[in-house]
């Protein structure tokens, strides 16, 4: 039992001296390297004499002697052995989620084609679905929050909501969103919306909503199924396919909802609205997997105040409204002020007042 000193050469040109027992395992060597090089042992790949060292082998097997050099390469992800399932096997199942017969304009058809080939979005691990994968359990709030902190998930959600085709698919899959005014799409495209959707704090707000609805005698799961955003958001992390599966759960949940005291429920919702800035209405839209994001969407900061009189500030917009037949100056100015100077928004506002 003698100690040997080894030189570890890292890919960033750093060199580290490590001392271990000559009969240690490679895993023990990695554990000795971890605090020195600040790399977890799961992310270390050690190379000696042209071979990658296996964790379970001993240093003696590779004939590593005192004073020898070992190359260290750092990877981003976990060792495959540490993962419960093989990621490649799971991603093979993506095509089976595509429903047969969907039309040519279906953006999901591209998910298995080259357009998204580079996305390499991480699929949820088996641990997220609990011991029985045939009957998946919605992932916990913290698991979702961790997944949403993954920049790959955030980036893919951003790209998805910036794609008008994808938004059309999501909107048309939900009766509520289909009937919503067009500005819902614009809202979804805004960075604030996407930021709120991927904000782990939003998940915790939804968890609070969960508990409060339970206290009010409403079983959230029976009402909303997976639509609350659990399966939906998990699905978004997995290329957004799960979000459409959530629709079925939500429908079944809604159909099977037990009768509820309308007054008590309304009061509870009203209270939640005041406290959570609209998070409670995520329930109604959850069947598209957007519940958490919609409920948590924050108002953009108020623009700097323009002190010019309205006929000067909105001269161009007012003339456009007049050409379209909206001739009431005061109502036009109010609508433009509410829409921040946007003619489309002003028209929506004027029409809603009729």
């Amino acid at each position, binding site marked *: 039992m003698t100690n040997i000193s080894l030189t570890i*050469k890292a*890919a*960033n*040109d750093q060199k580290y001296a490590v001392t271990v027992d000559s009969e240690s395992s490679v895993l023990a060597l990695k554990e000795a390297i971890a605090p020195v090089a600040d790399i977890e042992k799961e992310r270390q*790949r050690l*190379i000696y004499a*042209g071979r*990658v060292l296996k964790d379970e082998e001993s240093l003696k097997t590779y004939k590593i002697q005192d004073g020898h050099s070992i*190359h*260290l*390469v750092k*990877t*981003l*992800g976990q*060792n*495959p052995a540490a993962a419960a399932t093989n990621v490649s096997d799971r991603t093979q199942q993506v*095509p089976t989620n595509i429903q047969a017969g969907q039309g040519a304009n279906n953006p999901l058809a591209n998910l*298995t*084609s*080259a357009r998204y*080939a*580079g*996305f*390499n979005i991480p699929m949820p691990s088996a641990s997220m679905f609990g011991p029985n994968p045939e009957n998946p359990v919605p992932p916990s709030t913290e698991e979702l929050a961790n997944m949403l*902190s993954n*920049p*790959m998930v955030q*980036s893919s959600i*951003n*790209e998805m909501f*910036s794609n008008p085709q994808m938004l059309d698919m999501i909107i048309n899959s939900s009766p*509520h969103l289909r009937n*919503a005014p067009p500005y*819902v799409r*614009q*809202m979804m495209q*805004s*960075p604030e919306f996407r930021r709120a959707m991927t904000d782990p704090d939003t998940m915790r707000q939804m968890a609070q909503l969960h508990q409060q609805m339970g206290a009010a005698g409403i079983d959230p799961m029976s*009402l909303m199924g997976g639509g609350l955003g659990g399966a939906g958001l998990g699905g978004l992390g997995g290329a957004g396919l799960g979000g459409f599966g959530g629709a079925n759960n939500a429908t079944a949940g809604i159909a099977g*909802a037990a009768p*509820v005291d*309308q007054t008590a429920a309304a009061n509870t919702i009203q209270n939640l*609205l005041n406290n959570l800035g*609209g998070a*409670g*209405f995520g*329930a*109604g*839209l959850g069947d598209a997997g957007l519940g958490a994001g919609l409920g948590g*969407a924050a*108002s*953009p900061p*108020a*623009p700097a105040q323009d002190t010019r009189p309205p006929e000067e500030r909105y001269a161009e917009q007012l003339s456009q409204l007049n050409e379209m037949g909206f001739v009431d100056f005061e109502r036009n100015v109010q609508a433009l002020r*509410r*829409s*921040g*100077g*946007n003619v489309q928004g002003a028209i*929506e506002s004027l029409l809603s007042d009729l």
Partner: protein
Amino acid sequence: MDFHAISQRFIDMMRSKNSQNASQPPETYPFYHEVRQMSQHPWMYEDPELQDYALSILPLDKLFQDASELEKEGDGSWGYQDYVIQALLKWFKREFFVWVNQPPCEKCGGETHMTGNGPPNEEEKWNGVRNVELYQCNVCGHNQRFPRYNRIRALLDSRKGRCGEWANCFTFLCRALGSRARWIWNAEDHVWTEVYSNKQQRWVHVDSGEESFDEPLIYEQGWGKKMSYCLGFGIDSVRDVSHRYIRHPENGLPRDRCPESVLQQALHEINIEFRSRLTDSERKALEEEDKREKDELDGYMRPVSQATPTNTDLPARQTGNVEWKEKRGEAGK
């Protein structure tokens, strides 16, 4: 509970909160989406199983020995890992990957000519193929397909292609050996690699098809290629590196795909997203690196009289046949 009433209430609330941005949002520009989509590209290099597979097929002993020899012969301006990349570049170009103009006939080995394009089959779709080139043998008339793979695993097995396949596979191998690497996309249909040198504290140009290391002027002055955008995509650093490769205004093409502010916003947003998982100290180090790179890139835009003098030794494009290069404007000045 009346969900319709609830959603109507929600719509009313959101309507009252909605305020429109007067200027055109960046999402209206297709190039904004293209950039965001391309930023996903380097993440496929990070699969640890794939990196383990790469380490099992790389001749590590030879690469490290070659790097040690290069280090001894060198003048100390490069670090050991830089020499590892140079050794990898030499091996990759000369022994591992094959350039394909027209693929030789799989039956008789004869010359082929292109007959058109076809759709990928299911397996090819899974391997990231967007387009399959169809060829016919000039000797025996056999028809064969040449799929353009984009998935790394398929490229490690096929080991042939043009600059898209070369740059993809080489950039991945740099990552597998532990170097920070960027995939460089050029709007005029070329791709290559940048690798970060810890010794020199800067991103270094590498073109695997040309076996070119730290020769960023090879396209402008060697090939005579005119370019507009050169964007670098890495997992922690996304950057417009056009100034490194386009030094003289007369060699530039118009940058008219979107306003410059939209491109800068896209790159900035992507960097924030990609770095959100890092620790504060790592983020600060990257911000320092960004400043250094900005100074470097701005330095290339000094008046022409002070810029790098024209290097007449840089070669024209090696890969590809003469007609193809001339058609693309890459056959030299």
